[in-house]
């Protein structure tokens, strides 16, 4: 795989991350299911995965950029695994709704593992690293970058509304910032 197809794959990765962050907001606003602290931490690690693709678009594909995404996904998978284990006892209904039979944290675990696998697959293609030329960002790539950044910034406001200026509640049911 040469540099340009690799850059395209990184653009697609950014749109996928934006899709995950958008889906999280959809569940939060349409189903009124506010994220718990562990859920927020998993969102943070989805945001962290985006650092690799953004660096790849800006400076060209490098193994170190993929490594950053793999590290973020690995720790994110650990967070999801912890939440799965908290609810593994028989009879435990789990936290939040189930989508297609799996809770959000189970989906998050699968997505983190998929991200690790995809980044490892991308590392198999050595020819993307041979070209030292810095790619000029495409319009689609620039939009993807700023879309992800906007969604991360939206999480700043959302989390401020959920937690207010205090510690985030374990099982949030209302926006603390707007409580009297």
């Amino acid at each position, binding site marked *: 795989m040469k540099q340009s197809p690799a850059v395209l794959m990184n653009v697609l990765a950014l749109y996928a991350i934006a899709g995950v962050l958008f889906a999280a907001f959809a569940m939060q606003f349409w189903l009124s299911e506010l994220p718990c602290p562990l859920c927020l931490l998993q969102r943070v690690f989805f945001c962290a995965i985006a650092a690799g693709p953004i660096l790849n678009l800006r400076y060209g594909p490098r193994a170190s950029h993929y490594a950053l995404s793999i590290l973020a996904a690995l720790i994110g998978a650990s967070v999801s695994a912890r939440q799965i284990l908290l609810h593994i006892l028989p009879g435990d209904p789990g936290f939040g709704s189930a989508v297609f039979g799996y809770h959000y944290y189970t989906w998050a675990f699968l997505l983190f593992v998929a991200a690790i696998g995809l980044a490892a697959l991308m590392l198999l293609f050595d020819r993307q690293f041979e070209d030292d030329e810095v790619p000029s960002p495409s319009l689609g790539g620039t939009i993807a970058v700023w879309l992800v950044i906007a969604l*991360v910034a939206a999480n700043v406001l959302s989390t401020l509304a959920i937690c207010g200026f205090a510690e985030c509640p374990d099982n949030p049911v209302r926006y603390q910032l707007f409580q009297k």
Partner: protein
Amino acid sequence: MIFTLLFFLWTGVLIAAWMMPRSIAIGATIVALGLTLALFIHHISDPLTLSF
């Protein structure tokens, strides 16, 4: 509040990844990853404050 600051930090890191020199961007990403991991470790070592 700590999670609000964490998202704020990552907003800055991703903007830095796009706009700042590569060495600064990578350094900022590693520091932010370390801080986020530290928060996770802090939480799992104190289960009473960690939600599900």
